[in-house]
């Protein structure tokens, strides 16, 4: 089977997305009672997930 083009770049981009979500969640959980931190973390997670759901792969690779 031929490897899909740009697999490495796509892998890396998705890894970056997961890293960003992971960082936000890791800070939010121990600070669950701090609305400012939790709101910011939720907003950051949403931004990342929106970007992934939008699926403009060619833009990710630019």
């Amino acid at each position, binding site marked *: 089977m031929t490897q899909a083009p740009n697999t490495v770049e796509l892998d890396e981009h998705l890894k970056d997305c997961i*890293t960003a979500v992971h960082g*936000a969640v890791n800070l939010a959980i121990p600070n669950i009672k701090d609305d400012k931190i939790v709101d910011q973390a939720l907003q950051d997670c949403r931004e990342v997930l929106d*970007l992934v759901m939008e699926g403009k792969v060619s833009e990710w690779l630019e």
Partner: protein
Amino acid sequence: MDIVVCGKIIPASTVTVEIDPATKRMIRKGVAHELDPAAASAVEEALRLMEKAGGTVTLVTMGFNEITIGIRTALAMGATSAVHIFDDALAGSDALATAKALAAAIRKKPFDLIICGTESSDSYSGIVPGQLARLLGVPPVTFANEMTVEGSTLSIKRQSETGYDVVEAELPALVTVTSGINEPRYPQLKGIMAAKRKEILQMSVEDLGLAADEVGEQGAREKVLEVGRPPKREVGEVVEDDGEGGKRIADFLAEAKVI
């Protein structure tokens, strides 16, 4: 204000650290690494100062290729650039040799403030910042759990048993920050993407103008003789409570002169 952060990239918290029995050193090659939480606090403090007063934040660190991921974390948090001291000749460096290498790299550019963690979370010697300050000829201001810079004056609060001390120094200076000084920010996606375009300057021992026998195994003046596990704790006495449990506890505490 041009700020330098000296921070270590250490084996990731998920990794079980192994010690090489021959060298007594931590096995770092091929192991996942991350930015030391102590360094993350130092980066955070530097970024807050930069956001207030402008300038740059440069991470200066030393280690193998494996540490690039930790450098990228600091850049993704917002550091402007990084210097990665990377040379096989540095393997086995003791604290003083590490300080010499860091000092040589820092001297290459003007700086106002150096921020370090109080100690790294993997080897805990805590002496590199003091040595670094001495080599650079700047005052070391240590154990800050709060810090401000007004004009050219650095002011810190250092926790003490009875409260805190306020310590001031004129810039340029070196400050070590405790882990409780702040909650380091996490790298956001934009920061992670931007970090890929930021400069990581790699420097070798030769680039630093150091002789090979000043660093690494050859230059080390301290040697780790033994690395061992802490002794196992003895199993305590198990007492079945047959109605006399309270008395047994009181007797035990009296014997230990606690009551």
